[in-house]
């Protein structure tokens, strides 16, 4: 009886979620499904793997380049975020922690395209960084090196995503009971040991979330490889833009999109599996 009542209640109030569901359907599910469909069908609607074959044939180097760039970025990101969050949480110098706590958030409010433009004028051979070195007498104009290219892309990704991942990680660290850290300290543990043995094992799920979300973001950025990259090899988003802008070839662009989606899904699956394993162990 009660079940029927709640069922009716649900039925009567289902329309309340309709606007949100409609938005998700129109602006997310439909484009996603259409993109997947387009990647594996001909114009006539027949199933084909030609587009995927072509995508791998032409852009396998770029796919590998994308994966390497993203993995290197995320590794550096993890190290830097943990370091900054640990300094904020564990540093005995409270004023330094406060300054750091303010500074690290700044990139959060700067869009990727602005970051890319900023980095372009900072990392170029005659950019702000090299000019500063030359002006200070540390380098001659002949010695300067351009960082535009794979290293520039990594620097930009890390700089931009650092705020987001540090925010998540330092939040998780701050949420830990302070007495857990104190208990370790009066048993003789150093701050570094506390970080690795007490704090990190407890914030691994948050670290995983921060890294997976950062990977998905980096995989989807177009402006950075276009503005910082040197053209070849480049990242998959640049290839997708190229296929559409130069050839109007939506099929191969969508096939690249499918590959990109699979890479993200694979990483997300790996993360979820680890997370479930840990929960099972608990």
């Amino acid at each position: 009886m009660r079940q029927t009542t709640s069922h009716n209640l649900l039925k009567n109030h289902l329309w309340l979620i309709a606007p949100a569901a409609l938005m998700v359907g129109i602006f997310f599910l439909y484009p996603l499904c259409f993109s997947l469909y387009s990647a594996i069908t001909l114009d006539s609607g027949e199933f084909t793997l030609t587009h995927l074959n072509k995508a791998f044939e032409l852009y396998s180097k770029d796919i590998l380049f994308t994966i390497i760039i993203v993995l290197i970025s995320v590794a550096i990101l993890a190290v830097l975020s943990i370091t900054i969050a640990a300094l904020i949480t564990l540093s005995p110098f409270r004023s330094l922690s406060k300054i750091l706590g303010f500074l690290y958030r700044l990139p959060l409010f700067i869009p990727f395209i602005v970051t890319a433009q900023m980095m372009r004028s900072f990392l170029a051979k005659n950019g702000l960084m090299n000019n500063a070195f030359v002006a200070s007498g540390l380098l001659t104009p002949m010695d300067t090196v351009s960082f535009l290219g794979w290293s520039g892309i990594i620097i930009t990704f890390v700089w931009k995503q650092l705020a987001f991942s540090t925010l998540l990680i330092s939040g998780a660290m701050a949420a830990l009971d302070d007495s857990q850290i104190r208990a370790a300290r009066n048993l003789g543990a150093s701050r570094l040991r506390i970080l690795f043995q007490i704090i990190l094992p407890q914030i691994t799920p948050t670290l995983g979330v921060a890294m997976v979300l950062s990977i998905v973001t980096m995989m989807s950025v177009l402006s950075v490889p276009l503005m910082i990259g040197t053209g070849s090899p480049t990242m998959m988003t640049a290839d997708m833009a190229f296929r559409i802008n130069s050839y109007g070839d939506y099929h191969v662009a969508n096939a690249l999109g499918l590959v990109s989606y699979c890479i993200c899904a694979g990483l997300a699956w790996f993360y979820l599996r680890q997370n479930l394993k840990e929960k099972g162990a608990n």
Partner: protein
Amino acid sequence: MAHLHIKNLQAGYGKKLILDNINLTVEQGEMIALLGPSGCGKTTLLNALCGFVPVSHGEIFAGNRAVSQLPAEKRNITMVFQSYALWPHMTVAQNIGYGLKVQKAKRADIDARVAELLRIVKLDGLDHEKVTALSGGQRQRVALARALAIRPDVLVLDEPLSNLDAKVRLSVRHEIKALQKQLGFTSLIVTHDQEEALVMADRIAVLNQGKIEQIGTPEEIYHHPSTPFVADFMGAENHIEWPTHDDAFCLNLSNHADQLDIYFRSESAVLSAHPTSENADFNAGLTISGQVEQSVFFGNNYQISVRCGKHTIQVDHDQNLPEHTPATLRIPIDALHVFAKKEKHSDHQKTNIVSAKSMRMNHVC
């Protein structure tokens, strides 16, 4: 274990001074309870001992070592926290053995010590359990074992029983005391529960506003409080400022010209609902006449509120009494805590203790 000596200690947060001129010695194997209301500085004192709050002045000696300027990890003073502070990603054995692992002890030694402590705190067989699977009482025992594992010079306990329910609290209280006697660790326990302090401690230090008001054995603190604050905090909740200029109060003490603060416990007062000549023979230090305002059932007795002029006196009684019943209260002279008010030039008043027993009897109404 070593003795703990605190000398002229000052500590606080930033510019705010919380502890002022604290002097305290805890003998080897002794347990001292720091007792006081919320915000009196008792937890700050523990934090200063452990190195979590900087010491701005004074010195702390653990044994012969001066530790006040050492970082927390070098003091060899361990704490048992109110929130247990166990690490949820570790098993019971890993939690207990962590301090020894930090000291780079051998695996076999760690295992042996962990097994010994598990036996002592009666948690045998739970070594591979996750701490999240334990009850509150078990968690606190793991925390105690973890703090004792490295054989600290001093053990400090910060309200270790506050998070436990009433029944478990009694058993853990008993166990901590038994362990302290068995192992003889030097310890300081913080509590705001006077009963807990009386039962567990060898001596009690009562703190008020960052200063120690009185140190003594539980009996001394309970029966002979040295200040009005200690008397009030130790349960002498009835307070009368003498003279009352009210005929309902009759005091059998000398020194009646002085202004006095008089404290007594509700269980010390004898209530007579229908005063007779028999009762009048009672040799009371203080006699109060009034009428019953309220009667509340307390399980083994009733707590009666008796209205006497502007004062409301709480008294324990074995029978329920209806409102407005005339009542006479008699408080024996030994049960009165009397403090002489000392008038100062400034507005505030200081008090001097007056021994009620040493006073010459003098009838003043």
